[in-house]
C-alpha cells in the first residue's frame, strides 16, 4: 500500500521550547489513523505544521509525491490535505450552505468579470457549486438547515458542518482535530458511522486527533501516540494499548506508587 501522507522527522520550536521534535508518520492510502496523546503533547501543533499554519524548522512533509514544505495553508488545502479545527472555526454569520460553497472556491474557474456579467459559464458553475454543496449537506444531515446561520447550529451539527466544508475541497487526506469533542453519546455513535462512510465514499485517508479512546480504538486501524512532542508509540490499536510507554504517559510512572 502506498502512503497518502508521509511525514519525516519534522520539528518545530517556539522560542527555545521544542513543541514537536522529530515527528514521523506514514498515513497509508485509505486508512483511518489516530493521533493521540495527553493534553499538551503537541497534537494540534502537528496539524498546524501539516497544514502550513506553522513552518517546520526541519523535516519533510509529502502529500503523495508532492512536497508540502514552504507552501501556504491555502495551497496545501488545494493540494488535497484539509483539516477541521479543535475549537470549530466556521463562518458564523454566513449560512450553512455558504460555508460549504465557500470551500468550492479553489476548484472554480470563472473570474470576477464573469460574475459581474453573469455569463452562462459562471451561472452554470454557481449552479454546480450549489448542487455539490447540497449533496454534501445531505450526507451530513444538514440540508434542512441550509439557510440558517452557521453560528446558530447546535454544537454537534457545527462539527459535522466543518467536516462537510472540508470535504467540499475534494481532499485526499482529511485531518480531523477532535471531531467528537463536546458531542453526546448518540452523536458520537453517529459520527463514527459517518467518518467510516465518508472515507469509503470519497476514498479518503483520515488522520484523527481524538481524546475519546473508545472511539479511537474502535475506528482507527493504526495509532500514533505523542507525548511531550515526541512519538512514543506507533502501531495497531491493540499493540499501542499494551505499550508500557503509552500507559505511563497517560497514567504516570508506575514506580511512583512503590
Amino acid at each position: 500500500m502506498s502512503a497518502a501522507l508521509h511525514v519525516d522527522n519534522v520539528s518545530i520550536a517556539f522560542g527555545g521550547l521544542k513543541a514537536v521534535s522529530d515527528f514521523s508518520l506514514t498515513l497509508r492510502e485509505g486508512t483511518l489513523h489516530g493521533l493521540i496523546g495527553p493534553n499538551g503533547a503537541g497534537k494540534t501543533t502537528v496539524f498546524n505544521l501539516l497544514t502550513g499554519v506553522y513552518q517546520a524548522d526541519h523535516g519533510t512533509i509529502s502529500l503523495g509525491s508532492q512536497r508540502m514544505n514552504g507552501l501556504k495553508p491555502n495551497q496545501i488545502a488545494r493540494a488535497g490535505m484539509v483539516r477541521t479545527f479543535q475549537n470549530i472555526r466556521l463562518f458564523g454569520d454566513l449560512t450553512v450552505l455558504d460555508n460549504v460553497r465557500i470551500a468550492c472556491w479553489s476548484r472554480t474557474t470563472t473570474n470576477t468579470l464573469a460574475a459581474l456579467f453573469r455569463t452562462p459559464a459562471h451561472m452554470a458553475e454557481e449552479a454546480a457549486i450549489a448542487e455539490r454543496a447540497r449533496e454534501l449537506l445531505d450526507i451530513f444531515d444538514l440540508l434542512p438547515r441550509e439557510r440558517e446561520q452557521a453560528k446558530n447550529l447546535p454544537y454537534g451539527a457545527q462539527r459535522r458542518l466543518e467536516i462537510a466544508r472540508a470535504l467540499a475541497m475534494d481532499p485526499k487526506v482529511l485531518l480531523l482535530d477532535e471531531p467528537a469533542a463536546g458531542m453526546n453519546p448518540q452523536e458520537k455513535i453517529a459520527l463514527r458511522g459517518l467518518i467510516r462512510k465518508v472515507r469509503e465514499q470519497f476514498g479518503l485517508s483520515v488522520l484523527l486527533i481524538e481524546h475519546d479512546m473508545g472511539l479511537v480504538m474502535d475506528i482507527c486501524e493504526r495509532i500514533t501516540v505523542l507525548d511531550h512532542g515526541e512519538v512514543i508509540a506507533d502501531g495497531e490499536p491493540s499493540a499501542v494499548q499494551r505499550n508500557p510507554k503509552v500507559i505511563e504517559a497517560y497514567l504516570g510512572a508506575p514506580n511512583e506508587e512503590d
Partner: protein
Amino acid sequence: MTTLVQTLIDGVALGSLYALIALGYTMVYGILRFINFAHSDIFMLGAWFSCTIAGLLGWAVGTPPTWAFIVVLLAAMAACGLLGFIIERLAYRPLRSAPRINVLITAIGVSLFLENFGQLPKIFGNTPTKMPALIPDIALGSFAGVRLSLVNLIVIVVAVVLMGALEWLIYGTKLGRAMRAVSYDTKTAALMGIDVDRVISITFVVGSALAAAAGFLQAAKIVAVQQPAHVSWVQLGLKAFVAAVIGGIGNVRGAMIGGVLLGLVEMLGGAYLSSELRVVYVFTMLILVLLLKPEGLLGKTTVEKV
C-alpha cells in the same frame, strides 16, 4: 550647525508633546487592544479647557501670576481625566467582549462626537481662539543664534516630570503592578483578584490627564488654539499614535522614546527638506515601521493562536 541645534531643541519639545499623548494611546492599547481614536480629541479638549479655565479665572487680560499655569494645567488635567472616565464607562465598557472592530467604530464615533459637539456655537464655537499668555514669551538664553525659550523649557520639564510620575506609578506601585498584570492577561489578572474594571478606568483617567497636559502645553506654545473639529488636532493625535507604534504599542517607555524620535524626525525633515510635508514624513515612517518591524522598537511579537 546653529539650525541643527535649534532644530534638535524644537524637535525634543515637540517630541515631548507627542510622547505625552502617545502614553494614553499605548496604555489603552496595551490593555484593551484598540486604538482609542477619541484620544486626540481629549488632547484637543485639554487645550480648550485650559483656555476656558484661564479665561474664567480672569487671566486672559493683564499679567497673570507665575503660578497660574500650574493651576490651569492641573485643572485641565482633572477635567479631562473625568471625561476619560465617563467615556470609558459609557461607550467602551459595554463593548468589553464585542469584536474589536465594533470598539474601533465606537471610538471613531466618540471622536466625531467630541469634535462636533465642542464646535457647537454654545460650547466652544467653530472659530479658533487665543490662549491667555500664562507663560511669558521670553528667551532664557541665546547662544550663537540658538534660542531656548521659556515655553519650550516648560514643555520639556513638565513632560519629563509627568513621565517620571507615570514611570513611578507603573513600575513602583501596587496599582502599577495591577495595570501591568491586566495588560499582560486580563482574564488571569481578574482571577488573581484584580478589579479589572477599576484598573481600566484608572488607565483612562491617567491617559486622558496626560493628553490634557499635552493640550495645555501645545496651547501655551503656539498660543492660537484651533477650532475643535480642525484637521490639525486629529493629525497631531495621529502622529502621537504613530509615535506609540514606533516605540512598540503597549510599551510605556517605547511611547516616550517613539514620541521624541518622531518629533526629531519631523523637525529635521521640516528644517532640511520641506516643512509642508511633515505629515508625509510621519506616515511614511509609520508605514515603514509597520512593514519592517511591526512590533515597534521595544514591543514584543504576538502570535495568533490556532
